[in-house]
């Protein structure tokens, strides 16, 4: 079993932006190394290919591509490591991964919009038909 291979490390903060970037790339590589085993454990082959999953994950990285504060980068890396650890420890279950990386967060929200003809209503009316809280 590959559990408890690694515990989330706390390191001092990066001395420079360079170092922070370096940590990000290191971390991404680390994730990629664990991908096959995660695919195995969570039975993901039937829903996604490793390449697709990898690009989903790199999308998560790219979401924060505009961050230039090294402390923030460090923190994001730390949180990523934590997430990875959870996956390896089975602190997560299959649907967690499905909802975050396979379907994506948006895919989990029910869309009544789908399959409904656009009658040229205002945004207000569309929201009104959907729910009281929009």
């Amino acid at each position, binding site marked *: 079993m590959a559990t408890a291979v690694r515990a989330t490390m706390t390191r001092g903060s990066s001395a420079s932006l360079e170092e922070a970037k370096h940590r990000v790339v290191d971390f991404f590589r680390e994730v990629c190394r664990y991908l096959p085993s995660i695919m195995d454990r969570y039975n993901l082959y039937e829903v996604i290919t490793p390449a697709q999953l990898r690009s989903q994950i790199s999308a998560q990285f790219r979401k924060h591509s505009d961050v230039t504060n090294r402390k923030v980068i460090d923190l994001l890396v730390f949180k990523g490591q934590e997430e990875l650890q959870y996956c390896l420890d089975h602190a997560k279950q299959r649907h967690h991964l499905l909802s975050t990386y396979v379907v994506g967060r948006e895919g989990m929200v029910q869309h009544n919009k789908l399959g409904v003809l656009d009658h040229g209503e205002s945004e207000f*009316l569309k929201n*009104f038909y959907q729910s009281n809280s929009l």
Partner: protein
Amino acid sequence: MVRGSKCYKVLQARGNANFRCLISPGCKAATEAPAEGTILRRNAAPISDSGYCRSFNYAAFSSTKCSQPESCTRIPLNLMRALANRSIDVSSLGASSSVQRTPVCSGSTGLIGSGGGLQSVRHLQTLAVTPTGPKIIKADTEETIEVSVDGHSLQIPKGMTVLQACEVAGKEIPRFCYHSRLSIAGNCRMCLVEVEKTPKPVASCAMPALPGMKIKTDTPLVKKAREGVMEFLLLNHPLDCPICDQGGECDLQDQSMVFGSDRGRFTDTKRSVVDKNLGPLVKTVMTRCIHCTRCVRFASEIAGVPDLGVLGRGGSEEIGTYVENLMTSELSGNVIDICPVGALTSKPFAFTARSWELKSTESIDVSDALGSNIRIDSRGPEVMRIIPRLNEEVNEEWISDKTRFSYDGLKRQRLNEPMIRRPGGYLEPVTWRAALSAVAQAVHQVKPEEMAGVVGKLADAESIIALKDFLNKLGCENTWCEGIGANIDADVRSKYLLNTTIAGVENADVFLLIGTQVRKEAPLLNARIRKAVRNNRAKVATIGPPIDLTYDHEDLGDGTDALIQIAEGKHPFSTLLSKAQHPVVIVGAGVFERSDKDAVMAVVETIVDQAKVVRDDWNGFNVLLLEAAHAAALDLGFVPGVTAKLLSKDHLKFLYLLGADDIKPDDIPKDAFVVYQGHHGDRSAYRANVILPGAAFTEKEGTYESTEGRTQQTSPAVPSVGDARDDWKIIRALSEVVGVQLPYDSVSAVRARFLAVSPNLFRVDELEPPTVWPQSITPRSSSSKIESSPFIKAIDNFYMTNSICRASRTMAQCTSAFANLKQI
């Protein structure tokens, strides 16, 4: 025997002709209980410490306003000390008139300080500010004395008690029986403090602070005294906290944690007391009672029903209703709040939740037009209970039973999805899209003149303005609000608001109540009038259906005859009214729906003019609106437009009911298309062609204006049920489907619309006083003739007035329990 509020001597003096009270010959304490003229104090007996009338004692020893104004002379300090030393010849005092009168403080600032705790400090600074009434109420802030509390010396107004002085100093004194809105009983002894140069600890709530007093609140003596009192209280108190509904918010629990001993020395059996049946609202577990008599004092002083009392002495002392009796007051639920232990708890709430698992939301009540401030306690999607919130200007700290107990109606009979009535007559649940297009189709088939919009009792201002804008855009001006009559004058605010304000009513000295049953229509306003009767000896006369108002009043008949006589100056009451310093005329809901309403109002305005009820510094003309929606509807001009009056109701082809349930099905033409928007499947839902489910007041943020013109907002405590929507949204959505889209998409945009129509609705939590009384407008000379028919009862059953109450089981129980009793 009722103790606490009554003079000891009254009790002694019953049937003993040799008693006469020398101090206060005019004391009314006697007349309330024994026959008139009962003599209170032994003739020419020397004054003894305990010999005074209690109310006199309070007057002398605290700044409390005693309930007997004549005898309530705040005795100058030197005199009081002289009395204490008995060095004064009492007979030389004669009547109380020889006592130099210091300004008597009026009820509202009677006891300086409010609910207790540190609020009093804040209160002190605002004392000089009268809430609204022009009568200047002043505490004796000029005259201060110096006392020291725990070594810190401080200046306090003369006449405070030791307990209040400690509060000013920031020292919280534990107490059970003391309550700032009730008379002082001094019987729990929990408030003991040490005063230098006194041999024993003193009960601070009943002891006046004297100059130079050195008060100590945290000495070993005080600690021991409190521990002792606590131990005695717990001797007979059951150990059932785990199943007690007061658990978690119990004064006894809290104070025994802080002041009690860590072990008991009691091995005997505890006493037990038979529970009393006070009706469907208040649950009693009398074994838990600690005999603080707060409930007794509340019932007789505030609620005005002497139902509760103390029976027996010592170990066999019990609180009860004397004979098997229910507590017949519309304010009875408040004893639940003031009972410091779990002896009196809420029956509907019993065993349903623990106080710490509830989420509290501060909101506004909509069951009457006063806008009482409430706290909604909810668990998940369910409202578990409703309790009052302190607002000195509106409800003080009380709420009516309808406010408190009708919440269970929010769980029954709810409309949770849009419905359309199919040809067979059954209602079919449909989508919002289908429901709205059905309404739109109907709208397109009728002419604007054939439409009408009716606003019900519980509508918020947002939905009222949306409905008005929507109908006006369609060209329809046929709009009215249920329960205020068709031809109400909505032009001048001061002609339909409670101008004196709820708090201002306390200052009045003569009342003329026209066509109103205040006790049913606005119980808390009635409590304020009762306060004025007790504090200022106000005279009250009623013209309208006979009712027990809980205080002395003169019934001038139920028709308009007396009204006309007063206007003509032929009635004895007209002199009383014109001589009054602060007269108040209240026109109630019995007048609104009369066909000769204009004529009646014209007569009322003549009276108002003649008696100078409206002056520069006092506006005593009041209209008491009946329902929460009324003031806002009138402010927003939700009244029939000029073109509307031309058509009779038979021509209506399209009717939009915004929660309007009192419209009779027979008044609606058979072929009319009826849209019902509301939260309860109440009366009108049975006639509706389309039902659009809205949100109840606990589920939305809605603006309401109270009858005195105060704008307040409810806040959502629980989510709306099913597929229901906020009311203004429904109308906004419908307007778009119909093709006359309203220009607002968010609630803040709707409120911005208030700014244009009626800016006072935009300023939440503010009392917007009506503009000055329009003096140039002479009383309307009415063309219609006044009829002598009696004023109707606007409310027949206090417990069943709106759709929420009618769905409530508790309210139904009240109805059956109190149906045979005349009082409520």
